[in-house]
C-alpha cells in the first residue's frame, strides 16, 4: 500500500527504490544529482538491532516534507527535491529514507540534500522504534526526555554519551 500523495513526496509501507527518486529529479539542465539513503544499521548505541519500525502522523508528515522540499528549492536554488520515507517494519540493511536533489552544480546539490535530511529528522512527525535483543525502544522519545523508565527500557551494552 502506497500512502503517497504527490509524485515528489512518498510515504510508503513498501520497499523504497532509490532509482525512482533519482530519476524523478533528473533534468537535462542539471549537472549534479545527490541521493541520500538512510538504511537500518545492525547496531545503535552499542545494542544489536534486530529491526526498526517507523510510525508516522502521515498527513502532517506529508505536509512537513513538502514544506522542506519547497524551502530547499527556494534557499539553495536547486532544481528539484524528491523524498521517500518508508514506514512500518524495516529490516536490517533496508532503506528507510531516500532524498534526491538535482541542481545545475554539485555544491548546492550536496548542501541541500544534507540539509534536507537534517530538517527532516527534526520536524517531520515520524517516529522510529528499535527492536533489539531483549527489548524495544522508541528512539529519541526515551533517550533523555523521560526519567521514568518502562519495564522494557534498554540497558545499553556500551555507555553512549547521550544516553541518560
Amino acid at each position, binding site marked *: 500500500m502506497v500512502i503517497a500523495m504527490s509524485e515528489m513526496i512518498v510515504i510508503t509501507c513498501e520497499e523504497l527504490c532509490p532509482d525512482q527518486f533519482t530519476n524523478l529529479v533528473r533534468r537535462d539542465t542539471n549537472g549534479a544529482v545527490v541521493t541520500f539513503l538512510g538504511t537500518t544499521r545492525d547496531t545503535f548505541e552499542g545494542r544489536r538491532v534486530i529491526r526498526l519500525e517507523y510510525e508516522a502522523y502521515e498527513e502532517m508528515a506529508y505536509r512537513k516534507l513538502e514544506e522542506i522540499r519547497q524551502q530547499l528549492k527556494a534557499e539553495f536554488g536547486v532544481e528539484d527535491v524528491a523524498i521517500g520515507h518508508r514506514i512500518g517494519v524495516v529490516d536490517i540493511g533496508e532503506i528507510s529514507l531516500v532524498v534526491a536533489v538535482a541542481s545545475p552544480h554539485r555544491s548546492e546539490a550536496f548542501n541541500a540534500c544534507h540539509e534536507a535530511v537534517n530538517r527532516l529528522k*527534526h520536524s517531520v512527525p515520524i517516529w522510529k522504534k528499535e527492536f533489539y535483543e531483549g527489548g524495544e525502544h522508541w528512539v529519541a*522519545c526515551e533517550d533523555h526526555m523521560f526519567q521514568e523508565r518502562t519495564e522494557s527500557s534498554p540497558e545499553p551494552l556500551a555507555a553512549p554519551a547521550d544516553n541518560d
Partner: protein
Amino acid sequence: MELSVRFFALYRERAGCSVASVAVPEGATVAELVASVRALYPRLAPPDVQIVVAVNEEYADPETSLHANDEICLIPPVSGGD
C-alpha cells in the same frame, strides 16, 4: 467542548489508545488541553517534559486557542538519528 486527541508512537503506547475524547471549556488553550490529557493519562510523560501538540497539522504554541473540530495530535520527540 469535546475534542478528539490523537496519540502517536510512545504516547499511543502509554495512553493505551490511538485517540481519546477530552472535554475542555470553549476556547481552551493547548496548555489547558495538555493538562486535561495528563490528568486522564498520568503515565504519558513526566511532569517536567513538555508535550508538543500539533493543531491542524501544524506545531502549536501552548497559548493557541482551540476550536471544535480542530485536528489535535500529541507529538512525541521526533526520531533524530545520524
